[in-house]
């Protein structure tokens, strides 16, 4: 058996210390830490050492954890108020944000700290003493605020059982759990023998060297045989992000169906994001609480005056198509406000304005933005798949046809169409697919025929079939995720282990 000099270094070290971590084995400086594992696996194949893989659970403080540390646990905040005699739900809701109140009440119920009677909270005995308890949960958060820590160490330092860690994890990831892999390398009996006998130059080739080949030395020796069933270290190829993979798949499907991809600006005026789509100016979606507006730039230029006037007239009184419009006033200043587009329909409608002649078959997959708090199913930004078909003699039936074709090509067999509502389409439809594992119909977005109130001011004379599908939901289903945030947290381990085929 041939043993390389680096391997001998490590083996000798192991003979002295019996076993060690990669960092310890590289401490002499003879071998770099990153090379230790390669050598260790090689020693293992020769049965000179054994590699033991340990997976330890490491906890770190999540965003929610920081908030809990600063503001306190929702149930504590409620109980504090209750003990100050603020007992009714109505009063509590004046003192606490709605979500905190809801979450806190949930925990109070779950921990049997109190119950609601006639709209007031009554504390149980346990609840009465709650604020005097040993605040293990806070202590854990405080520990993790300083540094990430392994599970065993936390349990030892705080003196609690693992349940409390699970509970903190359930609080919107107040603490995050990750697995850290570590290795220990131990010398085998055979390894010790080899050192004791002195490293022998057996007449067998272990690692084939270029010298062996050039000098034809290998002809005089035989090859040492490996145990081919032994485990080796893992290799991970570079890959596309699974979500990108899925979106590229959708792009391919639409291109196959004869659609051209288009792109537009992320930052749009209210005019293109809302007004051109006949979204009334006092529509709740346009309010500050739903749409992200900009300070810089605050306003954008409007398109040509004539178009703006036509859109204005349509909103106010319905233009020339026998529509009533929305009535009320229409304010140019609101139309100028810069927004992060709330849907990529802003992109398709702009395209139609520039290309008003049939046929048009285009789609767009891009980011859109809404003013949402981050949780497992909501993010302030998301990808949307928009598409339009404009042609003579198109009908609602054709719209259902395109949607059905797309979903079936994406592998969804059970599709149904439910009436929907969007201010800019009529008839409107919400396509749903049946997901066997969930035993549920999942809504995947909206579609419809653009209203005449939309197409007429833009000079479009033919029916336009349009859809705007939120594809985050679809990605969650396809990728088996239950938390949308995972797509953007890019856990390397998840990325490495999610297969390229979906």
């Amino acid at each position, binding site marked *: 058996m041939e043993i390389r000099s680096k391997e001998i270094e490590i083996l000798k070290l192991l003979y002295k210390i019996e076993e060690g971590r990669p960092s310890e084995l590289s401490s002499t400086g003879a071998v770099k830490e990153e090379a230790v594992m390669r050598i260790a696996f090689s020693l293992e194949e020769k049965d000179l050492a054994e590699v033991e893989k340990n997976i330890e659970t490491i906890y770190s403080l999540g965003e929610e954890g920081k908030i809990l540390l600063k503001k306190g646990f929702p149930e504590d905040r409620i109980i504090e108020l209750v003990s100050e005699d603020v007992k009714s739900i109505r009063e509590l809701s004046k003192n606490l944000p709605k979500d905190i109140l809801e979450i806190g009440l949930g925990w109070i119920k779950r921990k049997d700290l109190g119950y609601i009677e006639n709209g007031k909270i009554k504390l149980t005995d346990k609840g009465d003493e709650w604020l005097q308890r040993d605040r293990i949960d806070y202590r854990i958060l405080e520990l993790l605020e300083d540094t990430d820590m392994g599970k065993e160490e936390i349990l030892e330092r705080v003196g609690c059982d693992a349940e409390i860690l699970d509970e903190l994890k359930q609080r919107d990831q107040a603490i995050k759990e990750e697995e850290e*892999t570590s290795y220990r390398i131990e010398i085998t009996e055979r390894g010790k023998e080899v050192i004791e006998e002195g490293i022998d130059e057996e007449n067998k080739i272990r690692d084939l060297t270029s010298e062996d080949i050039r000098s034809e030395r290998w002809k005089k020796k035989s090859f040492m045989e490996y145990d081919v069933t032994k485990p080796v270290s893992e290799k991970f190829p*570079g890959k596309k992000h699974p979500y990108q993979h899925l979106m590229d798949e959708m792009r391919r499907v639409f291109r196959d*169906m004869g659609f*051209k991809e288009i792109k537009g600006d992320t930052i749009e005026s209210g005019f293109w994001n809302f007004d051109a789509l006949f979204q009334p100016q006092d529509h709740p979606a346009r309010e500050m609480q739903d749409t992200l507006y900009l300070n810089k730039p605050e306003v954008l230029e409007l398109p040509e005056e004539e178009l703006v006037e036509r859109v204005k007239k349509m909103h106010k009184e319905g233009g020339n198509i026998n529509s009533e419009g929305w009535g009320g006033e229409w304010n140019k200043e609101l139309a100028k406000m810069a927004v992060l587009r709330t849907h990529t329909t802003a992109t398709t409608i702009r395209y139609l304005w520039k290309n008003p002649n049939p046929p048009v078959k285009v789609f767009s997959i891009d980011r859109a933005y809404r003013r949402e708090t981050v949780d497992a199913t909501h993010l302030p930004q998301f990808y949307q798949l928009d598409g339009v078909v404009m*042609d003579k003699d198109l009908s609602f*039936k054709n719209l259902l046809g395109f949607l059905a074709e797309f979903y079936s090509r994406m592998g969804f067999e059970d599709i149904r169409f439910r009436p*929907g509502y969007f201010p800019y389409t009529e*008839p*409107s439809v919400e396509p749903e697919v049946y997901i066997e594992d969930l035993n549920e119909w999942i809504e995947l977005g909206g579609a419809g025929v653009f209203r005449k109130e939309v197409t007429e001011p833009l000079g479009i004379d033919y029916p336009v079939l349009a859809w705007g599908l939120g594809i985050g939901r679809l990605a969650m289903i396809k990728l088996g995720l239950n938390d949308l945030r995972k797509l953007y947290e890019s856990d390397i381990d998840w990325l490495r282990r999610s297969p390229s085929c979906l």
Partner: protein
Amino acid sequence: MDVEELEEMVGCNYEHIIEEIPMLGAEVEKVYGKTVEVEFFPNRPDLFSIEGTARAMRKFMGVETGISNYEVNKSNFKLHVDESVLDVRPYVHGAVVKDLKLDKSTIKSLMDLQEALHWGIGRDRSKVSIGIHDISSVNFPIDYRAVEPSSVSFVPLGRKEKMNLSEIAEEHDKGREYAGIVKGHKRWPIISDYNGEILSFPPVINGVQTTVTEDTEDVFIDVTGMDEREVKKALNIIVTALSERGGRIYEIEMKDAYDKHTPELTPDKKKISVDDVRNLIGVSASFNEIESSLERMGYGVQIENRSINVEIPPYRVDIIHDWDIIEDVAIGYGYEKIEPEISDTSGIGAAHSIESKGSILREIMIGMGFQEVMTLTLTNKKSEYEVVGRKEKDSIEIKNPITEEHTIMRTSLLPSLMKILEMNRHRDLPQQIFEYGETFQASSNYEKSEHQTDKKIDECYKLAATSIKPDANFSEVKSTIQAVMRETGTEYNIERSSDRIFIEGRRANVVSNDSNNKIAVFGEINPEVLTNFNLSHPAFAFEIQVDALRI
């Protein structure tokens, strides 16, 4: 909604109703025990009550189809509208509904409907607000006028003592919430009766005296607002819902500032062409099918030659164009009966250049062993500049951020990539990641995208990559970025850089030979930056402006 009540009002069993509701256009949110939560679309406020839902389902499920006719009884009730309201809240419509039998749950249902309309039609009361009063202590005629806020007082709901309008605006919860709607005016609207008793201070609050209770049999409803069409809609929805409960509707005559009788429950009529219906939906439905579809949706229908005369029920406030009715034909017909069929519209599939470039760049990066990641484009100044040691640039700023984390749009991909390394610091090394995505800057000199109407924003795609491992070094990052340049056929020079995310003397700019502009930057990450991200191994990174590459 209470399940048993719904069953009784519709006349069908509950499972069947739940099954059909989505096909009318709604989402069944939750079913727990005897209650079901259904979310209807905002354009159908007539469905925001159990009465309205039951009415629609009765017709949709064929129990009783066609238009509901609501009789408005003549009366001597009068409401004087003073011209003083014309500036502040010009429109009022009213009605009296008699012979109601109310209990706790029906009162709650009525209040819920009122709130839903305040929101849905009233835009949080600014456009329309509704008051419902027990009529027993009210003496007609009623008076609607605007007065000096401190000149009149009454006992508002939720209080025991009299307050004047200014006090209500300052001290009462509802006042603080809604008085803003009239605050810009010198005089504020009130509704009072013949004896001067104040019933209401719209759109803020009612008086306590006319509170509706389980003993209430007859009610007076006032709807005030800024837009007469919306005022009329709200009143129609309320009175027709009460009529479904057996109430009898009586008219009120508005006098003085304008003269009219309300409520106006005569159905509007529209004429629709059969061809339009067939063409838009794409089915060759027969006259009979169209007729029965519309009747299932609660319309009155007469077919005449090739057109359909449609009577629109007075509670349907969403019909503004023929196509709204045609959609209802489709819903009544049943979406499930419409056979999906692709049109033969021609088109040539084509990728967008940004995506084709992305494919090329992904292939190069993946070939070099880099893993793609995706990050959010919203960030904040601290993460974007301070943590990576960079100077602030002109970024796009959000006016109404929802969290401190998301106040600007990213100008570079590198800070998010560093963040990803931080999140993965417990994972095995080496880690090599890249991202291809859009970045934003407020005004500079880049070429505009085809749609940009303005010179205020640069939206620009970048490719960035980083690698963390014990032997990450400058020569490797240089050979990596050189590979990207070579593969994309880009000619360039390399100069020293001053980008502080990198170590001084181990950082460089790539300058394009085409434009002489800086198109990329690369180097070894500054240990101070590594420490900010809790990283303890060396790392390198680069970032390239993709529009400057020759692909």
